[in-house]
């Protein structure tokens, strides 16, 4: 299926459905005593299905910290993180992998694909890693690669794919296990403008037509047209949330 060209048809405001995830007054302090660095202070954010959220802010403002806490990769030092209807902010590394596998798909600036594995293997392996009991992971991987328009490149190694194609493989991988939330830290930063926009279009499509919540950190204001809202972060604080009338 092709990504729909939605650039000029911004969808309406998200329906009043329940949030998939919620940050409540979350804060993060790295280190202790004199070396303590407050990376995030009292950030609150609701993640809704079908919504594309951009996170912008100057370098060092806490964007990565924010999405790491949201993605359950990092535990906040204060506040709450609600997933699957409960506060999981105090859970340990024992319980978190399962929660991450069920709820999140991640994309990265550097793609993080295994260079030794084909596109298909990269995706299939992720499906299996998330759920060792998954049925037919290769068939599912093929389906996901077709969804991101890479049906003809399944047997290529990452080295034989363009940057945009690699990021599509990474998106297909993130979709493995069917998580409701996609989280990306500058997923388009390593791509040229045209490619960056087409990757963003794909993410927009996944939100609009497949109900995924997409949360993406970016420095690129040209991506804003794909977003339902833009969260501005400065000095560890959420200073504004545009496009949101709640």
């Amino acid at each position: 299926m092709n990504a729909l060209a939605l650039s000029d048809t911004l969808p309406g405001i998200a329906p009043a459905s329940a949030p998939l995830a919620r940050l409540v007054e979350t804060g993060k302090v790295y280190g202790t005593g004199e070396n303590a660095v407050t990376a995030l202070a009292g950030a609150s954010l609701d993640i809704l299905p079908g919504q594309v959220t951009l996170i912008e802010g100057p370098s060092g403002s806490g964007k990565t910290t924010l999405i790491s806490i949201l993605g359950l990769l990092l535990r906040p030092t204060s506040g709450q993180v609600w997933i699957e209807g409960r506060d999981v902010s105090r859970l340990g590394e024992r319980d978190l992998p399962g929660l991450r596998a069920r709820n999140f798909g991640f994309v990265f600036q550097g793609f993080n694909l295994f260079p030794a594995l084909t596109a298909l293997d990269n995706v299939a392996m992720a499906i299996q890693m998330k759920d060792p009991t998954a049925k037919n992971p290769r068939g599912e991987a093929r389906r996901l690669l077709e969804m991101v328009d890479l049906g003809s490149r399944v047997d290529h190694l990452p080295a034989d794919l363009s940057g945009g194609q690699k990021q599509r493989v990474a998106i297909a991988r993130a979709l493995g296990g069917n998580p409701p939330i996609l989280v990306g830290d500058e997923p388009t930063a390593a791509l040229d403008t045209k490619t960056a926009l087409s990757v963003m279009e794909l993410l927009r499509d996944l939100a609009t037509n497949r109900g995924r919540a997409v949360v993406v950190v970016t420095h690129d204001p040209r991506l804003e047209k794909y977003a339902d809202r833009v969260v501005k972060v400065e000095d560890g604080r959420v200073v504004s949330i545009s496009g949101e009338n709640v």
Partner: protein
Amino acid sequence: MWTLARKLLLHDRLRFAVAIAGVSVSVMLVLVQVGLYFGFMDTASSLIDASSADLWVGKAGNESFEFASPFDERTYYKVASTPGVEHAERVLMNFAQFKLADGGDLGVQIVGIETTGLPMLAPWHVIAGDVKRLAEPGAIVVDRTEYSKLKIDHVGHTTEVSGVRAEVVAMTKGIRSFTTSPIVFTDLRTARSYMPTLGSDAVTYVLVKVKPGVSPLVVKAQIDQLPHLAAYTTHEMSERTRNYWSTRTGVGAGFFTTAILGVIVGFVVVGQILYSGTLQYIREYGTLKAMGARNSMVVRVILAQAMISAALGFVVGGVLAFGMQAAMAKANLTVALFPSLYGVTLVVTIAMCSFAALLSIVKVLRLDPASVFKG
């Protein structure tokens, strides 16, 4: 998971080749060194192992099999008349000077045996001549493998031992002595004539066959009551001899040290290769953890790589050891390779590769999944 492990390993062919080479060399060293050790030990106890005796009786205080003190015939009769003994045979073993074709002398190990009936100890692996002629005065049997020392390659060769006539009536193949002196079989009487200083009725061992239904251990205990004698089951005698040579010569320690060094080399090479691979893919492993893969899954991917290296290295090393066995056989060295040695070596290889993976495993266990979003 195996597929992933295999592909990760194979992606860098050179590194993979080095890992397999490391394990192979290690496996080969272990097999060949331990095999050589057992080969030597088999040689050391070959005469004992080839006998069909239930018990070996010698002078109490004998330390080594080869350098045994003689006793006299009266003692032999005491052993032979011990209750439960069905049959007893005399063996006289000692060293004598063998005259070579070029006029020189060579120390040989004379093994004088009783040649009537079906003796409990007799030359085996006969390739030429007639062993039955051994009963004739001056008849000897030598081994073809000692050709380089004795320079005898045909039956009928005549020479002298201790100045007394000797004629080769048969040849064997593969009976080698652990001491450097070749083994020369003769009849007991001929042996006595070669070693006159020991007296005309010298005996060094009495081989005992016990009566059917009688426990050799019971007979052994009774013989042990006789003054100045010690009896051993054939198995005990064999073990004693192996232990003696193993500890006296340090040959055991030498071979095993080399084998252990081989394991250490394999450990370091595989550990290094796995670790550098882990570091190379650390971001991807972090991604797996971020995605929700459990630590156990990621650890399995690394262990699977270690196991693939172990298995392939074991196969290659095992084949190499076979090659070395053939090459060493040409130099008259026995590398004893047997199934349980392969079995133990496989276990050692798996353990070695697992431990080598430990550093990599600790690395991914400590890997913070949040690191995937760090620049």
